[in-house]
C-alpha cells in the first residue's frame, strides 16, 4: 500500500485515507485564453514513466491538499511538500536527483 506523509498534519497516511488529485503545478487559464491553452490545462498530461509531481488530499484526515513527488514505476516517494507552491522546491528536486541521477525535469 502506498503511504504518504501529509505535510499539513504530519500523519503517515495509507492511500485509502487519501484522494489523488492528478498532475501538480498545472498552469491555470481563465476567460479570454485560447482553445489550446484550455486543452492543455484541462486535458493534456505529462504521464511520465518515472518521476511525477502530483496533488493529493488528506481526505479522511485533516482534509487539506498537499503535493507529492513519486516514481510511477516503483511507487518510491521522494518527498511530500506544501500545496502552496507553483513549482517543486529545490530540496525536493535535490532529493530526486540523489535517487535518480539521470533524471531531468
Amino acid at each position: 500500500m502506498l503511504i504518504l506523509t501529509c505535510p499539513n498534519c504530519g500523519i503517515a497516511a495509507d492511500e485509502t485515507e487519501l484522494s489523488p488529485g492528478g498532475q501538480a503545478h498545472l498552469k491555470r487559464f481563465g476567460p479570454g485564453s485560447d482553445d489550446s491553452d484550455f486543452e492543455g490545462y484541462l486535458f493534456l498530461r505529462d504521464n511520465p514513466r518515472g518521476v511525477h509531481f502530483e496533488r493529493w488530499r488528506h481526505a479522511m484526515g485533516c482534509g487539506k491538499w498537499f503535493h507529492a513527488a513519486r516514481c510511477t514505476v516503483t511507487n518510491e516517494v521522494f518527498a511530500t511538500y506544501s500545496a502552496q507552491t507553483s513549482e517543486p522546491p529545490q530540496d525536493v528536486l535535490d532529493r530526486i536527483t540523489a535517487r535518480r541521477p539521470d533524471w531531468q525535469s
Partner: protein
Amino acid sequence: MQRYSVFAVAREALRFHKGWQRAWRSPAPKKRYDAIIVGAGGHGLATAYWLGRNHGIRNVAILEKGWLGGGNTGRNTTIIRSNYLQDPSAAIYEKSRSLYETMSQDLNYNVMFSPRGVIMLAQTHHEVRGYQRTAHANALQGVTTEFIGPDRVKKLVPIINIHGPRYPVLGGLWQARGGTARHDAVAWGYARACSDMGMDVIQQCEVTAIRRDGGRVTGVATTKGDIACDKLGLVVAGHSGVLADMAGFRLPIESVALQALVSEPIKPCMDVVVMANTVHGYMSQSDKGEMVIGGGADGYNNYTQRGSFHHIEETVRALVETFPMISRLKMLRQWGGIVDMTGDRSPILSKTPVDGIFVNCGWGTGGFKAIPGSGWAMAELMAKGTSPLADPFSMFRFREGRFIDESVAAGVAH
C-alpha cells in the same frame, strides 16, 4: 501457411504431431517498411492485418518490446459488448462485435468467441434510468439490447442474490450477443495471418526514439537498430504518453493500473457475463471453470503493473454480497495491466501533429472488445487519411470540445 482443420489434426495425429509448422516467422528487421506499427497487442496486430487485407499495404513491420500480446491484450477479462451510449461508440464497438462473430473463420484460428450474453446490473434508481436510456439509444443505433427486470436477471443468473441488503438488483441491461473470447488467441491468430501476408512481427524490439525531419516521420530507433518508414502507427496503450513524448507531442492520456483475478476452477455455475458497476465488480466463468473477476482501476497514475490491494478487497467484498456462493472460493492468480485513460473515457484514433504518425490509444479499461473494429478503422485512417469510424475519435476533439462522453454511461465498465 499450413491451414488448421479437423483433417490437419487427424493427419498430424497419424504422424505423431511432427509436421506442425511455426505459426509465424521471427525475422530480423529490414532497413525500411512502408508502415511500422509499434505495439503487438491486439489493436496493433489488427491494424496491420486490415492494412494488408483491405488496403493492400503489406510491407509492414509490427514492433513489440516484450512478447506478443504481453500487454493488456493478454491481461484482460475478455468481455465483449457494444451497448455504449453515443453514436460514434456504438458504430465502432458494434462493427467490432460483429467482426468477432466471424474472426475464427477469417483467421483460420480458433479464438473461442462465446456470445453467451452480458448483463449490466442496475442497482440504483439512477442506474435503472441510465440503462433504460442506453437501451433506447441502442435501439436507434441498431444495436440489439434490452432492459430486463429482476425476475429475468434471476432466471439468467440463478446464483445471484437479487435482494442484496444495500444494493438490490432492480433490473439490468442485457445484450444477448455480447460475450467473451480467448485473448491470447486473438493476438496469435492475427500475428499468424500478418506473417502469412509477408509482414514482419518482431518481438523483443523496443522503440527508443522516433526520427523526424521537418515535421515528418522518417523512422524509429529500436533496440534492434534504426528502421525507416513512411508511416508510423503508435498502438501502445498504457505507454502512449511515453511514445508521444518521443515524437514531441502530448496526449490527453493518464496511465493507471487495472487488476483482475481468477479463482480455482469449479463446476459450471454461470453461463453469462455479469457486470455490477455501482459496486465495482464483474464476473464470468471461463471454459476451464475459473471465475474471472475484475473491478476498479487505481486512482493515481502508475506503471507498476500491480495495482493497489484495496481495490481487490472492494471488488471481492461486493461480489461476495452479489454471489454469496463464491464466499468460500480460493483465488489462484491476480495481475495488473497499465490502462490508458482519456478525459471522456473514449479512445483516440487520430492523425497527430507529426506528419505520417498516427495514434490509436485511450481504450482504457475496455478495449479488448474493440480490437477487430479498431484495427479496421485505424488501417483505413493510415491508408487514406480519413475513416468514417475513426474520424470522430480524433485527438483534437479535446481542443474543439467534441467529447464522446462515455464516462457517465459506462461507469467502471470493461
